[in-house]
């Protein structure tokens, strides 16, 4: 028996030294070139389909591999603060508190826009029109039945059933919820005081689905259900999408065009702005940016100049040539005004105090 233990102990020591040997190799620079070409990003699930396509195309173009983990906007911000990823992606921009907690200057810029659409499951109703008052009333639990007079008034001529409205929201914290509640807070004072804005809120009614897929699935299977999902998910599942009345009084069908209208505004220099309830005449009111976030000073945690340069060049590509991949996947492209602001921000990313992108 003692012999058996001795053999076990020796083999374990051999295996563990193998693992250490590999790590040791990276430390002495042998693997440093390959890890410089491997970038890590994490964050929003909303932008994951776009990221998949973008980074695959970028890899074929330049050989730089970007590994993106869609763990949620909050997770992306946390991992960036912990410096375990090179960049984060979030449907809500980093707040002042978050920036202070990360202890350094942060650059955040939008890479695409998306729409949060209201989807419903009503047999025989081809197109539902909703006003902000109706929408907030439904999600607050004040409007309980489909043939409520408010809904009937906005949908003249449509036969609405006398059934309960089954509300579906997100059970997990999400940037989609953030955009949706931001909109509701802007159009409903009751929502603003009672519920507020957040990635996770205290929903007064309804069931929760996990992720966009969960909400979409629940709405599809429950007659009389209403829920909110990203435009891409609703389009992919061929779900009924409601027209929403915007701030100018027009009923808008969600589309890339109407989202682009909403985003055609002057961005502040740090791009931290929400574009819900836009005043433009043909803008879809529940639109939002997705931001990529990275540190302004890239020389931290032993990162090399080459890696910092790869990250910044990749970001430049995503916001310029990479934009060609947005629209086929139902994400809106950045406007020219936005791109200019993004360029200024990217040019300010430094390594050791010197800007990385010099000749663009």
């Amino acid at each position, binding site marked *: *028996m003692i012999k058996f233990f001795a053999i076990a102990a020796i083999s374990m020591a051999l295996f563990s030294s193998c693992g250490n040997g590999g790590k040791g190799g990276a430390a002495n620079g042998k693997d440093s070139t390959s890890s410089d070409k491997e970038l890590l990003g994490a964050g929003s699930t909303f932008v994951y389909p776009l990221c998949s396509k973008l980074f695959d195309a970028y890899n074929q173009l330049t050989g730089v591999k970007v590994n993106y983990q869609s*763990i*949620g*906007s*909050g*997770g992306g*911000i*946390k991992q960036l603060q912990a410096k375990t990823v090179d960049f984060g992606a979030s449907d809500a921009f980093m707040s002042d508190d*978050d920036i202070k907690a990360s202890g350094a200057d942060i650059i955040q810029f939008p890479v695409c826009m998306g729409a949060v659409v209201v989807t419903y499951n009503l047999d025989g109703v081809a197109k539902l029109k909703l006003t902000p008052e109706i929408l907030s009333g439904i999600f607050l639990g004040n409007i309980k039945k489909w043939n409520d007079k408010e809904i009937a008034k906005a949908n003249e001529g449509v036969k609405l059933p006398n059934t*309960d409205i*089954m509300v579906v929201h997100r*059970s*997990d*914290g*999400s940037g989609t919820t953030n955009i949706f509640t931001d909109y509701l807070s802007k159009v409903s004072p009751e929502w603003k005081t009672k*519920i*507020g*804005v*957040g*990635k*996770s*809120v*205290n*929903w*007064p*009614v*309804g*069931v*929760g*689905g*996990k992720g966009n897929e969960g909400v979409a*699935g*629940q709405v599809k*299977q*429950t*007659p*009389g259900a209403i829920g909110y999902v990203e435009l891409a998910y609703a389009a992919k599942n061929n779900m009924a999408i409601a027209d929403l009345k915007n701030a100018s009084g027009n009923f808008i069908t969600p589309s890339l065009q109407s989202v682009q209208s909403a985003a055609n505004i002057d961005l502040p220099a740090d791009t931290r702005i929400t574009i819900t309830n836009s005043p433009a005449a043909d803008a879809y009111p529940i639109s939002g940016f997705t931001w990529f976030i990275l540190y302004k000073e890239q020389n931290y945690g032993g990162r090399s100049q080459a890696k910092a340069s790869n990250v910044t060049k990749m970001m430049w590509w995503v916001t310029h040539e990479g934009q060609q991949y947005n629209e086929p996947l139902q994400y809106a492209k950045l406007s020219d005004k936005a791109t200019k602001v993004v360029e200024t921000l990217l040019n300010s990313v430094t390594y050791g105090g010197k800007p990385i992108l010099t000749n663009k």
Partner: protein
Amino acid sequence: MKIESAKQKQASDWRLGIAEKIFNSLMSNAAILMIILLSGIFITLLYSSIPSIKQSGLGFIYGRVWDPVTNQFGGLSFLVGTIITTFLALIISFPFSISLGLILGEYFKKGIVSEIFKNIIELMAGVPSVIYGFGALYFLVPAIRHIETHLGVPAYGVGILTASIVLAIMIVPYWASVAREVINLAPNDLKEASYALGATRFELIRYIILPFTRSGILAGMMLALGRALGETMAVTMVIGNNNVLPKGIFDPSNTMASVIANEFTEATSDLYLSALIEIALLLFVVSLIFNLLGRQIIKRMASR
């Protein structure tokens, strides 16, 4: 037989003594390691929930509001959701588990039927909980929705009842296996004596076997309870994820395990994270309390 010299015997005794000592210390070290791990988990949970405990105090246990926007956290709805689903699951699975235990322990102790049932039970115990969740989502939820429409309640399909049924199905194998073991061990002489006195099979089960195996069946229930309390994946898929206190069996709700699974990855603020960890601590403590209570009850039953 080899004739050992006195010296050889002394050497082999010495080797036996060493082996004995090594074995003893390995066993006790393994046991102590388990205790250290468990206390480590408890201490970590306690330490990480201190910010939330400072904020909410004892009000966490009876607070109804779970609001991440205003940073107000109360865990009553999850506590209620957990307890209702667990006990409902136990009630629903009781007849099935006992029947299975009786069939395998009394009626078909050997043979092909026994083998089939035993394999099915083991398979059921081994199926991952996500698969139960998916099965429930595709088969159970539409069925419950159908029933709810007939009853005139809001027909979500998901809710406490659905979650309890899924839990009941998941805990049957555990309870049934333990029940089968103890029922098998009912003393044969008692059984033959009662047959000799003219008892029917049913009377045998009712008056001899069940009283004898009471404490064993309760032990099975403790095992099933522990499983049901902590079950996360299957529950979170079918419970409806509503953080408001449930008013009825068809209401969507949330359990402590499922709220952690849902909200942990996106909980950015420190207080939010700490509140979720306090929910985990609460779950830990609740499991502990139920376990201790259960053991007391079993002890009381066994001594009768």
